[in-house]
């Protein structure tokens, strides 16, 4: 998985906002705000190839969670990102 080209995380007024620039993303009309943990994950996987397992291990490194919970949360987040159209294969 990879974050689509033109998608970028920016900090506006203390919020972590995802914007999609460029002509190819002209139809993307959402402004997405990330919470702290999603922000942490995004910063670590931007410009990289990643998987749900990678997100889970990042969560385990930063937060005190067991592997099962981390995996479940990572998968849920990734599903959400796929649904919204932030990532591609």
């Amino acid at each position, binding site marked *: 998985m990879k974050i689509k080209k*033109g998608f*970028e995380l*920016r900090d*506006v*007024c203390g*919020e972590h*906002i995802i*914007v*999609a*620039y*460029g*002509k190819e*993303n*002209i139809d*993307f*009309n959402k*402004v997405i*705000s990330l919470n702290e943990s999603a922000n942490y994950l995004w910063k670590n996987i931007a410009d990289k190839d990643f998987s749900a397992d990678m997100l889970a291990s990042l969560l385990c490194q930063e937060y005190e969670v067991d592997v099962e919970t981390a995996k479940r949360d990572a998968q849920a987040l990734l599903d959400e990102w796929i649904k919204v159209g932030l990532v591609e294969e």
Partner: protein
Amino acid sequence: MNSSLKTIIKRLARFLLTPWRRRYRKRNGRVTNQPRHELPNDAWLGEVSQMLREGKPYAIYVKGYSMRPFIEHTRDRVFLEKRDSYNVGDAVLAQIASGHYVLHRIIEKQGDHLTLQGDGNLEQVEHCQEQDVSGVVTQYIRPNRTIPADDPKLVRRIRWWRRLRPIRRYLLFIYKAVV
């Protein structure tokens, strides 16, 4: 004029203009009242400004009614791009005071000095320098269609809108009954 008479005139205008409203809405899409995530205007436009200067063209929703009838609040988005120079008739994103941004149209250009006015504003104008401008609207994105800023029909309409400024108040009244 007292307010109840005003209301009656408004309702009458809406009623009389129903066929036009139907056509206009079909062509352009409707104004929605969906809840949206809103950011403080100046901070957000400052960030957008920064992006444009980095060479990243971007489409945004614009808040407010000052660009009526060409940009409608909650309905339209505009695609902004950076240019080397800007001309009269361009709708631009500009910093008009420290930390204060507007998206208005250039109505006068003298050297580097620009005068801006919102299409939907009657008297109010803003002043800035050309280097305060970070981008120009190149596409008007409406729910049912997208209009490039250099579309000849649109350019003609914008020119007429400027010429008819003395009666803008009344044209806006009609527009409000149609939108």
